[in-house]
């Protein structure tokens, strides 16, 4: 069950100029959370900013009863968050949302992360690896970013995945170009074993990945974003258009079958 709880900050590391890794204590979250789920954080007791901020579960560290978030400072909410220190408590709602559906049969797991979109995929990769240590399933991670300095979690993926392919828009690391182009160019390489794509990143990237998946008839799950008010499914504020009508990102998602989404 999701909970509202005050989670103690255990660690707060700056891992790049605007990116932070936050480690929080919560036995409940560790117990309950599935990859692809998120937490909704109250960053300030003042009313500006007013709303909570959603962040994906980046890693679960069972042995410490802790979980990690990986976030970029993009505005005032995340800026305030970045000022918090170990020992502080944060008012957190979670775990929220549906999460990724894990593969039920042996297959090639294709992770595609753009920018901060890598955050929940690490959690997913670790979970898959955990659950199926002995299968021969390949995990292939495609990670992309605008430039080398903005490419995160390369090391994490290298530890977990069988293969890590990298692209940057400016070619400063890995292939030059979008990660969706990289995926497209490498898809044919894979054998005909069943495969699934799990993608998280900017809207345009997810749309491109979704098209690639459709053309290649590969099932594809995408983690979507929307502005949220409640994060728990009551306000109907975070909807996106799907073939089955408006669906709530916080509740029906954030992970959706890419084929269900009406991209605009």
């Amino acid at each position, binding site marked *: *069950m999701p909970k509202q709880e005050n989670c103690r900050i255990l660690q707060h590391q700056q891992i790049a100029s605007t990116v932070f890794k936050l480690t929080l204590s919560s036995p409940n979250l560790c117990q309950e959370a599935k990859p692809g789920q998120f937490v909704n954080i109250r960053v300030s007791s003042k*009313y500006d900013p007013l709303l*909570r901020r959603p962040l994906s579960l980046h890693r679960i560290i069972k042995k410490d009863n802790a979980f990690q978030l990986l976030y970029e400072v993009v505005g005032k909410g995340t800026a305030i968050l970045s000022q918090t220190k170990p020992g502080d408590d944060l008012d957190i709602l979670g775990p929220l949302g549906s999460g990724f559906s894990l593969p039920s049969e042996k297959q090639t797991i294709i992770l595609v992360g753009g920018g901060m979109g890598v955050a929940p995929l690490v959690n997913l990769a670790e979970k898959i690896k955990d659950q199926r240590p002995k299968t021969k399933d390949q995990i292939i991670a495609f990670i992309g970013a605008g430039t080398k300095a903005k490419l995160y979690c390369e090391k994490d993926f290298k530890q977990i995945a069988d293969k890590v392919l990298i692209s940057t828009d400016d070619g400063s690391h890995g292939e030059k170009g979008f990660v969706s182009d990289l995926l497209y160019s490498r898809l044919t390489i894979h054998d005909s074993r069943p495969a699934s794509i799990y993608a998280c990143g900017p809207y345009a990237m997810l749309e491109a990945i979704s098209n690639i998946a459709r053309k290649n008839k590969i099932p594809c799950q995408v983690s979507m974003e929307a502005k949220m008010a409640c994060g728990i499914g009551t306000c*109907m*504020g975070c909807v996106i258009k799907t073939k089955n009508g408006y669906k709530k990102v916080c509740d029906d998602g954030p992970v959706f079958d890419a084929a269900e989404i009406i991209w605009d």
Partner: protein
Amino acid sequence: MGLKTEIAGIKMKNPVMVASGTFGYGEEPSKYVDLNQLGAIITKTVTLEPREGNPPPRICETSSGMLNSIGLQNKGISDFVNLALPFLAKFKTPVIVNIAGDSPEQYAKLAKILSREPIVKGLELNISCPNVKKGGLQFGTDHDATSNLVKTVRKATNLPLIVKLSPNVTDITVIAKAAAKAGADAISLINTFLGMSIDAETKHFNLGAKTGGLSGPAIKPVAVRMVWQTAQVVKIPVIGVGGIMNGNDAIEFFLAGASAIEVGTANFIDPQAPLKIVKEIEEYLKKHNLSHYKALIGKVN
């Protein structure tokens, strides 16, 4: 402890309700709060037919407030009666159903249907939603339309009628008096202010529907003023809504003349807000040596 009350004939264990549209039909919030501790649950606006609502984005944060343009998305009255009410029936808390329609007749029809449901203890007429072309603001900004609407619904049901007013008017007291005279048992105010937000970078409206309703602490001063004005001209209870985040805010509305309050946006920021508010009111009463919160109503000086 000094919180029991009766509003429009509806018995409540305390005067803290949850505002329509900010608590769904109670199911999701029930994971975080004990519904039995609430004064009443006011359900998200239901209409006769399903409504798909407005295109996204539907939410935009503003300074100490938020805009929403949900547009009354709901699955219609039969779905509500069949699925939402049975869930709510599991609790002892009075259920007040907030309804809207395109015409007085639709409101009346909804009222009739809901009158048959024993767990429904009252109706709140949403004549103030700024997010729909029909069935919202056009009633709540005109005193004749308000009067006519309330009279029509009054004839259709014996349920207590709370009329929820819009702040988007020149003189709230005119509309309030019209509603009272037409047979309302209580007035609730305020619904949201019509607002807009534009992204300077992209030049796009921040809401798919262009405009939305402003709620939250930003609007509290106007809500308090309107409650104060209204409480002076109507004899029926006034229910205060608008930016209530904590116990002191609730007290402020009581002092201004509210007989009860509704907690809206605060539910998003802190699902436990309504219960914390109940506790904080209790603490205030203790501190100020008051045996009942009613001693506060209208007592500003």
